[in-house]
């Protein structure tokens, strides 16, 4: 909680003969985060070079490329395959050796057939289009060529022309343009071309077919039908092959990806002529397991040591270490940034407060049930998205439940009242209803949540500086800087409460607020001292920071008003939708029943459905984005930097195969 998993820095050294067993063993455990060796002449690493991949890496990579290209033809990937039985990796390797060439040739035959058919279709269509204008001319196709003393022209022209010399021509007006065919003596060809080009003639190539135009077009049409049948046949066969091989290909893809990753692992090692050194991190709890495994795999020919030198915490990979219920919120954290190793990890706060605030904002039994239903309907889809989808599902579920609970407390269902009066605060607006919302109470509670968030933020900020900065005057200044903001903030609040009796000052508030004006001046002085002291501490760290007083103290606190405001606007939309549908359409129709009345009722129901659907979507934006933003912008800026190295253990999570 609040801390990532403790990590241990491991150095593994062995002779090169053991490299394969070490790699296999580490890959199997899937806990070792390799720090890539960079050849830059680090002290103590003179003469050490990057490793070279295992011999079979080239072959494996080319096999993998073949698999991927077949998958590309089938438009599948391991990510789109589900419910595939897990097979032993050896069987799959055998399949890669025995069946892959067969599958590859089958697929390439099919794709060749498909692309031939596609080419044929294109050609036929093109020929038909080119022949079509000639159908307007009553001349057989053989007659367009084979002359020694005649020049033939065919093409599109704007309007008919006349030649000043003997010629034979045919002009046909068509909707795609006017078509002209002309036969002139070769002697007049030059002049004819000039006349034609002056008239804006666009020539087309002369046909090479024989017989009548229609016969030629019919012939191409027959070929076209055949080619289309071939294409359909090839596509169907490809689909058939896809159904047959897709799961095997996914498994092959996985096994080969693993093999390639292992074969290329030495590229991340530091090697000498005879030995290699592997640098990386292992979760503290797994050290003993890894050590024992390596010793067993190499028969004791390996040197594993825990590096206990001074640690550069910025290099330590960070793996979340949260209780199960908080895990889903890690998605929301990674959206911002992974915490640094020594930084407080606020995931747990986010995991509790995000669904809670979602519920506070949307708070409606009807909408909550819709969110729950959507989550359950989309469950399979989300689960297929892997770990992230599963986490998203849990977050939506949490938000849905919280929305229902707050809906019960607010007494709201689709903007209507439940049979009881609101238990918490009323958010019922005077739209077609009778009681007033407790706007002030809601706003005050929202701001109070803000006050807590900001205070916790600055306290976390102090802790983070204390833990992460190097010891010295700078660290003290930074910690006091955060304390300065905290002091100014509370100084401001104390001054406010000592001068004004907020409880009676704000009209319509029912929450009992302490009346601190009875203490009066002494309290004001305490507040003022705190404020000035805070300002001094902040200025000591950086005087320019004082510019942020309005935003940090006021804007950020008042920004939490959105919890009440966005919630009220959601209620308002729901109530307006109900009011519109009931008062304008459904109630008048029911009072005076007729055919028009039925239509009115249908329109009214449509207004209800569309309006509430819109509000459900807006609820996601209001209920999810605003709390997230409050955390990211108002809360995290007080203490959180992020940017830690993400823990990526060496190894692939297998879905289709097992070693």
């Amino acid at each position: 909680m609040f801390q990532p998993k403790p990590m241990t820095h491991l150095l593994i050294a062995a002779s090169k003969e053991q490299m394969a067993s070490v790699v296999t063993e580490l890959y199997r455990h899937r806990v070792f985060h390799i720090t890539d060796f960079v050849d830059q002449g680090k002290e103590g690493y003179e003469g050490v070079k990057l490793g070279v991949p295992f011999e079979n890496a080239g072959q494996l990579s080319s096999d993998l490329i073949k698999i991927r290209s077949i998958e590309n033809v089938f438009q599948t990937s391991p990510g789109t395959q589900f419910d595939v039985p897990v097979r032993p990796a050896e069987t799959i390797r055998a399949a890669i050796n025995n069946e892959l060439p067969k599958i590859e040739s089958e697929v390439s035959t099919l794709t060749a057939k498909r692309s031939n058919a596609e080419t044929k279709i294109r050609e036929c269509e093109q020929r038909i289009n080119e022949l079509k204008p000639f159908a307007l001319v009553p001349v057989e196709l053989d007659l367009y060529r084979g002359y020694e003393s005649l020049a033939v022209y065919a093409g599109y022209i704007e309007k008919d022309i006349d030649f000043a010399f003997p010629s034979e021509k045919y002009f046909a007006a068509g909707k795609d343009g006017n078509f002209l065919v002309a036969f002139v003596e070769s002697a007049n060809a030059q002049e004819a071309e000039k006349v034609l080009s002056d008239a804006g003639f666009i020539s087309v190539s002369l046909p090479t077919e024989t017989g009548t135009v229609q016969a030629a077009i019919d012939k191409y049409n027959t070929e076209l039908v055949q080619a289309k049948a071939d294409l359909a046949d090839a596509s169907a066969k490809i689909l058939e092959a896809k159904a047959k091989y897709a799961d095997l290909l996914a498994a092959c893809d996985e096994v080969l990806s693993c093999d390639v990753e292992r074969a290329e692992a030495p590229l991340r090692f530091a090697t000498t002529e005879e030995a290699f050194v592997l640098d990386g991190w292992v979760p503290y709890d797994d050290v003993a397991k890894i050590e024992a495994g390596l010793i067993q795999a190499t028969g004791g020919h390996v040197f594993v040591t825990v590096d206990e030198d001074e640690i550069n915490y910025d290099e330590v990979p960070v793996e979340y270490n949260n209780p199960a219920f908080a895990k889903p919120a890690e998605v929301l954290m990674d959206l911002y940034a992974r915490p640094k190793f020594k930084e407080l990890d606020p995931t747990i706060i986010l995991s509790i407060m995000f669904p809670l605030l979602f519920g506070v904002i949307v708070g409606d039994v009807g909408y909550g049930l819709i969110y729950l239903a959507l989550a359950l309907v989309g469950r399979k889809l989300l689960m297929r998205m892997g770990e992230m989808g599963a986490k998203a599902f849990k977050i939506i579920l949490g938000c849905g439940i919280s929305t229902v609970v707050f809906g019960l407390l607010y007494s709201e269902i689709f903007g209507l009242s439940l049979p009881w009066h609101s238990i918490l605060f009323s958010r019922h607006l005077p739209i077609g209803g009778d009681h007033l919302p407790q706007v002030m109470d809601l706003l005050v509670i929202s701001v109070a949540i803000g006050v807590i968030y900001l205070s916790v933020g600055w306290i976390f900020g102090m802790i983070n500086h204390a833990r992460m900065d190097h010891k010295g005057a700078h660290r003290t200044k930074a910690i006091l800087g955060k304390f300065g903001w905290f002091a100014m903030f509370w100084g401001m609040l104390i001054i406010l409460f000592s001068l004004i009796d907020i409880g009676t000052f704000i009209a319509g508030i029912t929450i009992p607020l302490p009346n601190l004006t009875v203490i009066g001046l002494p309290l004001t002085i305490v507040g003022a001292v705190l404020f000035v002291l805070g300002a001094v501490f902040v200025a000591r760290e950086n005087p320019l920071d004082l510019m942020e007083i309005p935003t940090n103290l006021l804007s950020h606190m008042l920004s939490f008003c959105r919890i009440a405001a966005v919630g009220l606007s959601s209620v308002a939309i729901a109530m307006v939708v109900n009011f519109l549908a009931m008062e304008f359409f459904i109630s008048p129709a029911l009072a005076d029943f007729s055919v028009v009345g039925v239509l009115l009722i249908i329109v009214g129901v449509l207004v209800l459905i569309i309006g509430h659907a819109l509000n459900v979507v807006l609820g996601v934006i209001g209920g999810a984005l605003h709390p997230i933003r409050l955390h990211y912008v108002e809360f995290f800026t007080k203490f959180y930097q992020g940017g830690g190295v993400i823990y990526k253990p060496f190894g692939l999570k297998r879905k289709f195969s097992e070693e």
Partner: protein
Amino acid sequence: MAVEALITDIGAQAIGSGLAAVGAGLAVGLAGIGTGVGEQGIGAAAVGATAEDRGMFGLALLFTVLPETVVIFGLVIALLIMFI
């Protein structure tokens, strides 16, 4: 006289509450325009960033809603005008 004064009083009240409603509308409307002006640049950049890298979507959406604070303040003022 007394009746006349009463009528004027009721009239003034009606005008007052009408003006309050106009004020509430202006608070939300003008703040909304401000937010829109703020969001237009961010939105364009966010769409660009998302087109480049779909992983940016979450962060881009978040940046886009940042200026929404302005309209929330407007909404709060409107609520205060209407219900207090």
